[in-house]
């Protein structure tokens, strides 16, 4: 088996977890830190939002490294689905498949049906423009952007960096992530999709 073939298989969760820590370590070593959502604020500061809102008035050039980092992630995403593409879609548990199918979302069973990253019923170019899907994508994105800045971080900053550094504020934030996530996954999203 070649190295490319080896890396192209879906990674075990322990390997993935360790690899994320490597990224966090490298960022710290080079003088940065692991926190992706700051980029959303930096993009606004760069675009001149600081002219009428002091929250965006800071030296965004000092955060340029983070924007470069996240641009790299775009390229990484491309490489991972081309050179390192998995031979099969994501293997989702039967219980989740049954639940999703009951609210109109099918989990891809073959790579021809999809990689198993996003549901075609919501994200495909043909389906994304329906009223319901625009509401889901734009409403969801808005909540992520508003919530992450309010909480001072997202999964990388709080759930990984913050919990690793034994920060109680991050624990509270992660509890919040789950209150919101559970409410959405169990009640609101099924209601929205069935609507």
């Amino acid at each position, binding site marked *: 088996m070649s190295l490319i073939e080896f*890396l192209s298989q879906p*990674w075990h*969760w*322990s390997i*993935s*977890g*360790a*690899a994320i*820590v490597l*990224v*966090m370590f490298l*960022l710290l070593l*080079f003088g*940065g830190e692991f926190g992706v*959502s700051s*980029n959303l604020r930096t993009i*606004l500061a760069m675009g001149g939002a600081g002219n009428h809102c002091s*929250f965006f008035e800071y030296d965004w050039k000092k955060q340029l490294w983070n924007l*470069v*980092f996240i*641009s*790299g992630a*775009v*390229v*990484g*995403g*491309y490489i991972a*689905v081309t050179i*390192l593409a998995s031979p099969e879609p994501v293997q989702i*548990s039967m219980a*989740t498949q049954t639940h999703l199918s009951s609210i109109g979302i099918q989990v891809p069973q073959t790579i021809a049906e999809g990689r198993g990253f*996003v*549901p075609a019923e919501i994200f495909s170019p043909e389906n*994304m423009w329906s009223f319901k899907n625009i509401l889901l*994508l734009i409403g969801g*994105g*808005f909540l*992520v*952007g508003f*919530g*992450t*800045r*309010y*909480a*001072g971080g997202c*999964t990388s900053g709080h*759930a990984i960096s913050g919990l*690793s*550094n034994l920060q*109680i504020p991050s624990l*509270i*934030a992660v*509890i*919040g*992530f*789950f209150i*919101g*996530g*559970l409410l959405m996954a*169990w009640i609101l999203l099924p209601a929205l999709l069935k609507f």
Partner: protein
Amino acid sequence: MKLLKYFMIGILFGIIMTKSEAVSWFRIQEMFRFESFHMYGIIGTAVILGAILFTILKRTQTKTIEGAPLKIQAKDMSIPRYLIGGTIFGLGWAMTGACPGPMFTLLGQGVWAILLVIGSAILGTYVYGLVRERLPH
């Protein structure tokens, strides 16, 4: 040149987000429904190894390659800020199946619908900036 290394780490990060399947909307639903260990395994491993890493870095007083102290800061204590902000974030995370890292990774995969998510996430951050003085922190 200084920025090139961040670009390389970013590429690595995008590959990890994809190969770990953390970019999968389906994996996020599965996680919030407690129907698979996968995402808990990833985050759990990262937190345990990360805690060991932070302990070593602090004990050895490791510096950045330029000799500055590492950016490991304690966060200011508050409850409403993290709890309310976190809950709003969690609602959006389960709705779109993407937190900020995976959003940018999915863009590289050609999932164009994610542009709507990224655009509205930037808008959400902007609106937070406008109203933050009136929110409990």
